């Protein structure tokens, strides 16, 4: 596609439910990042994929968070047993996996846990 696509754009869920967020990167981009942004805050790094592998999962806040990437393309971020503090905008970005490549961001998924 022309850009990074994220779905859904908005998600409201009840506390305790599981959610899946999807990211479709730009075709050919081997690097994929997930970030979380709480209201009025900066971007919190969650996880980075190089192809299908994740060399850095250090940003995942707890074991309720997991992510996978298949075929070097689509990635899903799963949050199990959601909590109210998980409410945020979840941003995905992709880039060519070489030095100096800018990140291309999707418009994010706004997650609200009630």
């Amino acid at each position, binding site marked *: 596609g022309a850009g*990074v696509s994220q779905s859904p754009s908005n998600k409201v869920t009840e506390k305790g439910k599981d959610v899946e967020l999807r990211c479709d990167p730009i075709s050919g981009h081997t*690097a994929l*990042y997930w*970030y979380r*942004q709480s*209201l009025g*805050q*900066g*971007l*919190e*790094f969650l996880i*980075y994929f*190089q192809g299908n592998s994740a*060399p*850095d999962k250090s940003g995942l806040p707890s074991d309720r968070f997991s992510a996978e990437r298949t075929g070097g393309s689509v990635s899903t971020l799963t949050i199990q047993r959601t909590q109210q503090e998980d409410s945020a*905008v979840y*941003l995905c*970005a992709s880039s060519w*996996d070489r*030095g*100096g490549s*800018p*990140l*291309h*961001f*999707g*418009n*994010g998924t706004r997650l609200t846990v009630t």
Partner: protein
Amino acid sequence: SQQGEEDPQALSIQEGENATMNCSYKTSINNLQWYRQNSGRGLVHLILIRSNEREKHSGRLRVTLDTSKKSSSLLITASRAADTASYFCATTSSGGYQKVTFGIGTKLQVIP
């Protein structure tokens, strides 16, 4: 964790004035990038400066990098109301894989 720290966190100027935002970071970097965000959604890449560069220009944007002080500045000249947005610096770590870490951002308001 936040690698970059932008300052000021908020800036309000009149249209036509210049806006300067600063970013400091802690570890060795491969490059530093500036991004813009409107309405709390996706970020747009503005400019990238490599660790061996000291200054870069793109249109009304001027970026400087001082690796000895681990700091960068973004200057927007002749600001317009449309420049109102949040601006973030992002550092790409050197060595290993290239982790891109963002700062907390500067919220710029340009008053018409």
